[in-house]
């Protein structure tokens, strides 16, 4: 008998104190969901039960699913039930074996204590090499150390895994469990968490430092068609901190009212950095929403504060498309003729297409004469 209990406890300990409110077991609620999960090792989708554990506030805090670890090499198969645990974003946490069960390797070797730890590390790595391994590669590898290779001639298969990436002799177990832990079920857990939480919890999700919660929340807001100001304000707050979320957020913002869309864009443009400004300008160019001239004139007053050629160029493209010949925009753009040459040249060609007064025309002609060889 291997020292399984010891290993199991070792694995469990970190999660005991990491899970909030776990001491108040009575407040927890378990909801069972019938789900259909795809696994690359299975020919057909698998019908199974995903258990959602909610705390006293109805917040999903953990999910579990019972799966099978298949050890099957050279016609010797042993099937062992395994319980997998995820957090509420679908991130794998740990595994448990049924009481008295042990994992085995090729040729009936038992898992050593360090093999259980290694398996945990493999399953917790959502970018493990098992992501890319094809099941046939494992099933046809003769010696489990990956020392077979592909010859030039036929379709013989290859598997090369560093020892650190696999439990030698148990590649199929690693493969099977990795895909259960990190496969199709992850997106289903995210979706279920979104469905389960309250509107207040959704707002908390938006501001959470883990952006996975933002994506769960924004998807759920669209599902529930929640486009009101309190949600938009929280989203703007988050977007000003994290530009990487701008594009998924704009898919949401495009569905808000004209007033909310324009206000959100204005806040992001004036308070945001380069990334926010660029996304706002691109959105304003492409949107079908109505944009008043005054709104655009107002944006143009920021032109001298823009730090990059790209922002200036995009702003001027927006003005050319949606607010041509605006005296205010022209006036603001003239200020650019004295800055860095690439920006000045961009401003020059914009102004060249605008209706100018005599004084402005003179000023523009003077610029043209001065830089005639570089335009």
């Amino acid at each position: 008998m291997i020292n399984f209990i010891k290993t199991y406890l070792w694995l469990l300990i970190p999660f005991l104190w990491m899970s909030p409110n776990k001491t108040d077991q009575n407040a927890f609620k378990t909801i069972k969901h019938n789900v259909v999960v795809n696994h690359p090792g299975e020919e057909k989708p698998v019908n199974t039960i995903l258990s959602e554990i909610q705390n006293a506030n109805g917040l999903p805090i953990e999910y579990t699913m019972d799966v099978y670890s298949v050890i099957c090499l050279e016609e010797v198969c042993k099937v062992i039930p395994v319980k997998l645990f995820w957090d509420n974003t679908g991130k794998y946490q740990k595994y448990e074996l049924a009481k008295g069960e042990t994992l085995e390797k090729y040729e009936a070797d038992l898992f050593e204590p360090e093999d259980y730890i290694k398996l945990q590390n493999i399953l917790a790595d959502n970018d493990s090499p098992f992501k890319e391994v094809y099941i046939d590669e494992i099933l046809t590898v003769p010696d489990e150390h990956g020392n077979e290779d592909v010859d030039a001639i036929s379709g013989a298969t290859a598997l090369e895994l560093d020892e650190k990436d696999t439990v030698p002799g148990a590649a199929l177990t690693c493969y099977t469990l990795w895909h259960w832990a990190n496969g199709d079920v992850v997106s289903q857990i995210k979706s279920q968490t979104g469905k389960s939480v309250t509107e207040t919890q959704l707002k908390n999700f938006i501001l959470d430092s883990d952006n996975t919660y933002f994506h769960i929340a924004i998807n759920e807001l669209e599902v529930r068609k929640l486009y009101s100001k309190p949600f938009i304000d929280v989203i703007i707050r988050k977007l000003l901190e994290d530009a990487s979320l701008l594009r998924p957020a704009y898919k949401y913002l495009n569905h808000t009212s004209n007033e909310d869309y324009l206000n959100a864009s204005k806040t992001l443009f004036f308070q945001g950095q380069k990334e926010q400004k660029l996304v706002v300008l691109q959105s304003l160019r492409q949107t079908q929403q109505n944009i008043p001239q005054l709104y655009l004139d107002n944006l143009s007053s920021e032109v001298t504060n823009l730090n990059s050629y790209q922002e200036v160029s995009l702003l001027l493209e927006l003005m050319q498309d949606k607010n041509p010949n605006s005296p205010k925009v022209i006036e603001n753009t003239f200020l650019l003729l004295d800055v860095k040459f690439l920006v000045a040249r961009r401003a020059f060609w914009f102004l060249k297409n605008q209706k100018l007064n005599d004084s402005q025309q003179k000023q523009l002609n003077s610029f043209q004469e001065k830089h005639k060889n570089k335009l």
Partner: protein
Amino acid sequence: MKRREFFKKGTTAAIAAGSVPMIFTSCASTNNIVYDKPKDKWYHLGTGKTGTPNRKPVKNYDVAVIGGGAAGICAAVAAARNGSKIVIIQDRPVLGGNASSEIRVHLNGVNNIKGKAERETGIIEEILLHNRFENEQESFPVFDHVMYDFVVREPNLTLMLNTQAVEAVMEGNKIKSALCWQATTEKMFTINAPIFIDCSGDGLLAATAGAEYRTGREGKAEFNETFAPDEPDGWQMGATLLMSSKDMGKPMTYSPPSYAIKYTHEGASKRRKFAGFQDGIWWIEVGSDDDIIADAEENRHKLMGYLHGVWDYIKNSGKFPEAKNLALDWVGSIPGRRESRRFIGDYIVSERDMTEHKHFEDAVAFGGWSLDEHNPGGIENISEPPSYFHYHFKEVYQFPFRSLYSKNVSNLMFAGRNVSQTHIALSSSRIMATCALQGQAVGTAAAICNKRNMLPREVGQKHIKELQEQLLRDDVFIPKRPANDPLDLARKSSLIFASTSSSGDAKNLLNGMSRDIDGKINHWQSDGLSANVQIEWEAPVSLSKVELKCDSNVKRNIMMRKDSRNDELFNNGVPEEMLKALSIQGRVNGSWVDLGKIEQNRTRLIKFNFNPLKVTAVKVNMTETYGAENAKLFEIRCYT
């Protein structure tokens, strides 16, 4: 057509259809065998004349490439595209060598480095992509024609099939001419060229030129090779005869032919596996410890016997119930060769150059297949594993130019399995896509030889940077050698930026590295489509060419396989990442002018050529890929 012309052409065709055996005896010269002697008794019924047929044409080219496999095709196309007038002399009726329908080996390359491919780009990738567009059904005979199309469409290139370069005519230490026998026309061509490239595998022309070569295995001591035998010997890895079978949907019987050699698998190494047997078994292999070329016909007969013996074992031993409904639907008659002559260059690549990743200043190609040395004896020594797979590479290795030209024949280069390397080095570099990279390198070098009127060694010594830069421009990847082309005006721009970015940076497009490698990102990727990248110059530049390298996912294999495998490592279609529709614009007097548009792009290297124009900026507009959500680029170049 006039009646007389009809008869004239018809008669010629009828005569050309014959052939004479390609037999040379010790007392015969080429004059003895060519059918154009004055005593010829041809009476032409159409003209009523007695004539002497002309069967000795003389042709002149800038470069003669011997061999039409992956290496030869790439050598010829590279030289042709770089301005040389080329001929390919191919002794088979089809192109492709080991990958042709005659042999059907997968066109492997660096298929698997730590679970991902590090695929070859350049001409060989173009061929494989062309096949993905033109041969969706993954037929080997159609692949023959895809390669044929790829070659004959090149304007500077002449293809001679069924033609074997049998003898070199020397002038000092240079090959002056190659005598080439065309079996279908009974012609003995004299091919004159200043540069010859032998990509034929066996290297008959190079051998007759007196180029130094060796066969067999080096002993450990000579190159300090871990995996070499203690003492040198004559063993050369065998050739393999392949087959394929088909599920007929009902039980199929099989009885072996008279020449089958009984196979029992008794005492076989456990690593001698049958996985994928329905598509051929690579260890049905026979080599030689003496003269493998002289043994070729004897070995072919044996291999046919072994092939049927193994298939008999699969069908009738009772150990393969899954083979019940299978029947052979194609059997090879031409074994695929792995090894014979290795010619000597100024440098001999050996095991440690590869495993220790030696940096070569003259690197022009790369490899990364394992050190896959097949066992001495092949199927006649089944207690040994069929291959030792000595060493698996964790990163690609460089291959130097000095190993691709002859040490003692001054105008001779080579590419493929016959290059200057040890037996152990060959066990990795013999893979076809690696050979193809060598081919593109020597083809490009040949064009430089022509342009500069010099010999290959001088190119290596004085113009290696020019050679490397041209290869990099033509989308060859050279490990750890970023491009730095002084003619590339994109590198002299003041600003580059992209409309959106989801990963990488537009600045990466000018860093000279055309793939993500060594843990570094060298790409720009859009965030959705459409997207654009813009380059700005402070002062106008005159442009007539813009060249892009888009993504074709070099981490996933695209060669045609018999099992049509389609997963994370192998793709059986067009890479979804590749750009499909794009256009470019130049800014002239403040306005954008269209410079080119492509709606059905088929290559990683995308070239736009247009009339010279002075612009202050260039914009690349990308609107569609073959399925990917984002566009990804690795390089932008601009030329006058």
